[in-house]
């Protein structure tokens, strides 16, 4: 079975009928996504783990309400985010985390690495730290699109918003990220030129 996963719809259909193996396969397939989406909300690994696990259990019992043939991924994301929000850390802890990321950036700069690599590392650290300063909604929409590669249709389902507003929400989030970045931050020379 490994390396040849059944497609989601078939697994969901079997899980709906109580096939625990099928559901376990779905969990295996999506646990990384679920955990990482939860982490984007909680910023804390134990909370994210808890939220992802709870979300999978909830999703299993909610399969009866899952529309057959609908994509599983955005539906799961929504449940994960709900769970994660219940465990979201305080604003204070988020600030601490952002500071930690900035400290990591500083130590990264001190590490003996070739100049370009150090520049890229520093840039990434700044991006990560700045993402944590954004509102959760903005961070999540950027992560859905750019980290987790959800399609616009999937994002609309995951965010429970009309498909037509996904693009504008995304570009507003991107604009807010840009405004939150340090004014003197330079994009690394490669980032702007490579094709995405």
């Amino acid at each position, binding site marked *: 079975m490994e390396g040849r996963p059944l497609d989601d719809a078939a697994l969901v259909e079997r899980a709906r009928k109580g096939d625990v193996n099928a559901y376990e396969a779905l969990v295996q397939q999506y646990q990384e996504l679920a955990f*990482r989406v939860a982490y984007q909300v909680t910023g804390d690994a134990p909370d994210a783990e808890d939220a992802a696990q709870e979300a999978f259990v909830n999703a299993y019992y909610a399969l009866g309400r899952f529309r057959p043939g609908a994509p599983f991924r955005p539906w799961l994301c929504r449940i994960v985010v*709900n769970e994660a929000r219940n465990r979201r850390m305080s604003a204070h802890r988020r600030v601490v985390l952002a500071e930690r990321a900035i400290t990591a950036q500083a130590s990264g700069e001190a590490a003996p690495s070739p100049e370009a690599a150090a520049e890229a590392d520093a840039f990434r650290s700044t991006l990560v730290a700045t993402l944590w300063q954004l509102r959760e909604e903005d961070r999540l929409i950027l992560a859905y699109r750019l980290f987790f590669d959800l399609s616009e249709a999937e994002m609309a389902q995951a965010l429970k918003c009309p498909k037509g507003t996904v693009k504008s929400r995304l570009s507003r989030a991107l604009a807010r990220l840009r405004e939150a970045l340090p004014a003197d931050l330079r994009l690394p020379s490669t980032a702007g030129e490579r094709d995405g």
Partner: protein
Amino acid sequence: MADPRRMLDIALERALRSLAPHYPYPSTPDLASRVRGRITAQPIAAPRRVGLWRDPRRLALVAAVLLVLLGAAAVANPTTRDAIAHFFHVRGVIVNRVPSPLPSASPITSLDLGRRTTMEQAQSSVTFPIAVPSALGAPDGVYVDSGIPGGEVALAYKPRPGIPLVRQTGLGLLFSEFRGDLIPDFITKEVGPGTTVEETSVNGDPAWWIAGEPHTIIAQVAGQDGPHTLRLATNTLVWEHGGVTYRIESGLSKADAVRIAAGLP
């Protein structure tokens, strides 16, 4: 000439994409076996729950499943754990026993039912079929709030013979519906010593009857700023059917409220 800000956004988008494989995530835990353990212990509950109350073993099974579903809320707010242990079977509502039902710090908000609209438009703004209590006839006002997951609809009925005025709402009866399955912690009810909370059922679905002294109702969507609603509420029947949580707030008796609820299509 392209907008230079737009150019920067494109560059930023690419930078984010290239960050993806380097993002400092903690390592993903193995959830599959733990999830398997939990769902094997509690098979999917049968869809029909009629007769639940007459069969303690089945009740215990469904209760355990629902307790799992509400685990999140309990973790989020440990003080509600006791209340949830007793009243865990309606998603969307958490009941909290408090020494005084009056909110101490936060100001009380107005009724704020959302946007006044027509039944047709309300239906197109929410993700569940709107139920209208046939016993009450057409509502005097239809309100919709699409700011919460799945949307919320409130049907307002003016006082009339048989439906007394409720001071807290200025209405005779308020009927509201929202997706309790999507927002299991949407409403928190803080009930003081003068309020009774009683388990009951509506067409076999678990329900609560909250009556006596007015209680505080706080509606809030996690992640959104400030509570949606924070006010005093009076006698309320609340129940869930098919993922939708329904609420009747009125000056009616429990029997009358349950009769109206049971007549829903």
